[in-house]
C-alpha cells in the first residue's frame, strides 16, 4: 500500500503553534499541515525502514513526549524482524529501549516530570496504581495494555503495555524514533541524575534489569554455580549480576568468540557449544552435580545446528507453523540442572513449544521462574550501583550509528557481523 494513501489530509494532527517545538519540515508533509520525524518502521519480514512519520502528540493528560537522544536495538526486536511474534502491522514503529529529554508534559503528570528532565523509558508501561503495580509486578500491570480485550483472550489475562512490541501488548509506537509518546509517564520513567552519560544509563530501560532479574530469581547462594545460556546483551548483564550477587562460579555458554571473550571479561567461565559438549563440561565444572541455577538468555530462537538435532527438528516445525518457538535451551537446562535447582528464563518466548521434558523437571524438583522484566522494581537499586561505579553497562556497546543506518544495523546485528553485540542509535 502506498504510504501517502493512508493519510487523511483533512485532519491536521497538530499545528506548529501548539506543538511548541518548531523545527524544519519538508514540503511533503507541509502539504498535510503537520510535523514529521524519522523512525524505524516495520514493513514486513526483515524489512525495517527509516521512514518519515508524523510526530506523536499528547493524547492523555498522563502522557509526556520525549525527544529521544539514544535508543538501542534489542535481541527481542529480532523476533519481530523475523516476524515470529503475532500481531505486528506494517507501519508500526519499532523499539523499546530508549531515553531522552522530556519536551512536552500532559496536564495530569502532576509534577512527576518537567520539561527538560532526562529520563530512561522502561520498556514495560506501568500505571503505578493497580494491584500488580502495588506489588511491584510491573510487567503485568493491569491497566496499561490498551488492547486488553485481545490480550485477555490470548493470554487468559492481560499483561502490561509495551513499547514497540506488537498490538497484543498495546500497539504502542516504539522509541527507535526522534520522538516518542510515553503514556502513564508519571509512573513510567526512570529519572537520570545529572552527570551520567546516555551510554551508562540507557540499558536501565531493559537489558540491565532483565539480566539482573534473571539472576535475582535464581536466589543465588555463595556455593552456587550459575550457568547462563546465551552471551548476548542480556546474558552479559546476567553474568555481571550473578557476580555481584555472589555466585561461586558463573558459566557463560555461546558459540561466538567475541561474545565469549566479553563473558570471560565479566568473570564467567566460558563454554563454546560448537567446540565442546555443554552437558559434559557443566558436569565437569560442578563435580558431576550440574549447575545449581540455570539462566536462559536466548529464548525462542535457539541456534540451529546439526550438533543438536532437536534444533533442526524445531526449525522444521517452526517453518510449518506447527510450533512457534525453538526451546532447545530449555531442554538442555532441564536435563543438566542440579536437582532442586532453579531454571530462570529471561529470553522471550511467544507461543507454543514442543517436547519439554516435564518428567525430568518434575522428578528433579526444579523451580521455574520467568517473565518480562519488572523494570522499575530494580532501577533505583541499579541506578545507585551505576553511580557508585559498581557496574558500567556501556561495556556491551559495540556499534553506535544514526537512525538512518538503523535498517543496516538490524542486519549486522542479526547476522552477527563485525563482532556486533549491542547497537545504540542516535536519532
Amino acid at each position, binding site marked *: 500500500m502506498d*504510504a*501517502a494513501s493512508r493519510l487523511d489530509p483533512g485532519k491536521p*494532527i497538530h499545528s506548529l503553534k501548539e506543538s511548541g517545538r518548531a523545527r524544519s519540515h519538508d514540503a511533503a*508533509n507541509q502539504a*498535510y499541515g503537520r510535523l514529521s*520525524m524519522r523512525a524505524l518502521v516495520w*514493513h*514486513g519480514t*526483515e*524489512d525495517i*525502514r527509516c*521512514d*518519515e*512519520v*508524523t*510526530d506523536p502528540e499528547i493524547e492523555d493528560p498522563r502522557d509526556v513526549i520525549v525527544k529521544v537522544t539514544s535508543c538501542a536495538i534489542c535481541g527481542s526486536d529480532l523476533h519481530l524482524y523475523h*516476524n515470529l511474534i*503475532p*500481531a505486528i*502491522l506494517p*507501519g508500526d*514503529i519499532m523499539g523499546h529501549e530508549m531515553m531522552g529529554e522530556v519536551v512536552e508534559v500532559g496536564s495530569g503528570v502532576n509534577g512527576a516530570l518537567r520539561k527538560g528532565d532526562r529520563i530512561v523509558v522502561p520498556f514495560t508501561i506501568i500505571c503505578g496504581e493497580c494491584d500488580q503495580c502495588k506489588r*511491584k*509486578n510491573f510487567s503485568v500491570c493491569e491497566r496499561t495494555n490498551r488492547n486488553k480485550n*485481545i490480550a485477555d483472550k490470548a493470554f487468559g489475562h492481560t499483561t502490561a503495555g509495551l513499547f514497540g512490541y506488537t*498490538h497484543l501488548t498495546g*500497539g504502542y509506537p516504539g522509541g527507535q524514533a526522534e520522538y516518542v509518546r510515553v503514556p502513564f509517564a508519571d509512573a513510567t520513567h526512570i529519572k537520570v541524575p545529572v552527570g551520567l552519560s546516555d551510554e551508562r544509563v540507557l540499558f536501565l530501560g531493559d537489558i540491565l534489569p532483565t539480566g539482573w532479574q534473571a539472576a535475582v530469581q535464581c536466589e543465588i547462594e555463595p556455593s552456587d554455580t550459575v550457568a547462563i545460556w546465551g552471551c548476548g546483551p542480556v546474558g*552479559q548483564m546476567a553474568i*555481571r*549480576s550473578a*557476580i*555481584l*550477587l*555472589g555466585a561461586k562460579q558463573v558459566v557463560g555458554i555461546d558459540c561466538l568468540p*567475541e561474545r565469549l*571473550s*566479553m563473558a*570471560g*571479561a*565479566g*568473570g564467567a567461565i566460558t563454554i563454546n557449544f560448537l567446540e565442546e559438549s555443554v552437558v559434559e563440561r557443566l558436569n565437569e565444572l560442578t563435580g558431576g552435580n550440574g549447575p545449581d541455577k540455570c539462566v536462559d538468555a536466548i529464548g525462542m530462537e535457539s541456534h540451529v545446528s546439526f550438533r543438536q538435532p532437536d534444533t533442526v527438528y524445531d526449525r*522444521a516445525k517452526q*517453518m510449518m507453523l506447527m510450533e512457534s518457538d525453538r526451546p532447545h535451551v530449555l531442554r538442555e537446562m532441564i536435563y543438566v540442572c542440579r536437582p532442586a535447582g532453579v531454571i530462570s528464563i529471561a529470553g522471550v518466548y511467544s507461543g507454543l513449544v514442543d517436547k519439554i521434558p516435564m518428567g525430568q523437571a518434575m522428578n528433579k524438583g526444579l523451580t521455574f521462574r520467568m517473565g518480562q522484566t519488572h523494570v522499575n522494581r*530494580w532501577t533505583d*537499586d541499579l541506578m*545507585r550501583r551505576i553511580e557508585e*561505579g*559498581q557496574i*558500567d553497562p556501556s*561495556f*556491551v556497546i*559495540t556499534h553506535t550509528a544514526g537512525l*538512518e543506518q538503523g*535498517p543496516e544495523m538490524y*542486519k549486522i546485528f*542479526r*547476522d552477527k*557481523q*563485525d*563482532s556486533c553485540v549491542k547497537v545504540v542509535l542516535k536519532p
Partner: protein
Amino acid sequence: MNMLSKFGNLSRRPSDPKVVKSGPKALAPSDMVARKLGWFSIALGMVELIASERIARALGIPGKEGVIRAYGARELSSGILSLSADRQSGLWSRVAGDGLDIGTLLWAFRHDNPKRDNVGLALVLVAGVTLIDLLTAQKVSARHARGRRQPQDFSNRSGFPRGLEAVRGLARKDMSSPASQN
C-alpha cells in the same frame, strides 16, 4: 503480517504516528530474488507431488513417478528454507537439488527415449534455473555471512569500573530492592 494479525482485527489508533514518506526497502535485491526462488520451489514441489504421472509421461520415463514425488518433497523443503531467515541453506540445497535434477534428466536424455525433445527442453530450463540459484546463493551468502574478519577480542570489557574482585558478592550485603514479591 503473520497469521494472528489477520484473526485479531487489529489496527493502529488514528492518533498514532503515520508514515508520511517511506524509506528505501531494507531487503537487498538478492534477498528478494531468494524469496521468489523460495516460492518457485514451493510451486514446483506441489506440481511434482500432484502431477507426477503427467510429468513422467511428458519426459518419457514412466514408472519413475515415485522419484518425481520425492523430488517434489525436496523442492518443498528447500522452498520453505529459502523463505526463512536461514535462506542461505535453502538456496544451497536448491543448488544441490538442481544437480540431482540435471543428473536425472541426462539419464533420461537417451536416444531410445521417444520424448527426448521434451527432456532436452527441460535440461535447458533447469540449467538456466541452476545458474540463477548459484548466483543468488553466492550473493546471499556473501551478504549475510559473518565474514572472514577476525572476531574482536573483548576481554578488556569487564563492565566493572572498580574491578571484578572489588564488587564480587557486593549485592549480597547492599541489596535495596525487594528480591521477590511474587
